[in-house]
């Protein structure tokens, strides 16, 4: 009878995946882990690595004292830019309406003049 066994290489790949609970071990891998000291040592190292990763997240990072004001300034500048664009849009719209009104008035005046000429 041939007994199928996982080898260290296959288990090593599984250990990296299982370290963050992304994947569970299969029966062959579990069987291997009960007997292979090297793979168990590797598994223990992954566990320590994960703990250290979480601890590192909590470790303080040297703060940049100017960062907060820089963020707020960036948002302010963006707001001002938007406001300026909006104002420019209003000015363009008002200018367009004025130009349209002037053109209409000119057209009406021309028609009146032509009508007056025809009548006289």
């Amino acid at each position, binding site marked *: 009878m041939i007994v199928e066994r996982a080898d260290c290489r296959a288990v*090593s*790949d599984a250990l*990296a*995946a299982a*370290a*963050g609970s*992304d994947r569970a071990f299969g029966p062959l891998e579990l069987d291997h882990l009960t007997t292979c000291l*090297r793979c168990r*040592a*590797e598994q223990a*190292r*992954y566990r*320590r*690595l*994960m703990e*250290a*990763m*979480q*601890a*590192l*997240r909590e*470790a303080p*990072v040297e*703060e*940049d004292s100017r*960062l*907060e004001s*820089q*963020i*707020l300034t*960036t*948002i302010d500048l*963006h*707001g001002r830019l938007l406001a300026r664009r909006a104002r420019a849009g209003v000015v363009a719209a008002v200018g367009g309406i004025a130009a349209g009104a002037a053109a209409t008035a000119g057209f009406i005046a021309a028609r009146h003049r032509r009508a007056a000429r025809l009548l006289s």
Partner: protein
Amino acid sequence: MVSLVERAKSGDREAFDRLVRITHSDAYALALRLTGSTEDARDVVQEAYLRAYRSVGRFRGEALFSTWLYRIVANCAATHIGRRQLHRHDHLGAHDDFIDTRPDYDPTLLGDVAALRLNLDAAIRDLPPRLRSVVVLRDMYDLPHEAIAKELGISVTAAKVRLHRARRRLREQVLPLPGEEHDHDR
């Protein structure tokens, strides 16, 4: 925090400023871990908050505000790193050999928790950006694979492959098994 987010969503600038004050240190820490540079981290965080400010109205509250912000930081960092690599022409591929240049690297110190953290921090910074991003976002900030894949513009499978490769590198680097130490002396 929830009420501040609600106020910020309705356009209250003061509420958004307070959210910046509460969250910017954490966002900066993530950006620093993703980019490995204080200058880049500062740029990334500013860009991320600007994007957050513009889109906070669309924040649906399905995740925590901090998680939503981390995703924006991750996306900005990925864009920033991509742009930087394009300019510098010094792409670091996932298969590049790692050379440990730290003079104070000493495996005998690994029993010490502080030394482990120090070495781990350095090892994370030395990872290629494509591996560093996934391992930081997943194993330090607990973002789901799907979110990581989306923000980095890769498939979920690719994100998992990179994650496992990154974990293996870090493990070999900071907690080597007997016989693995010499691999890093090359």
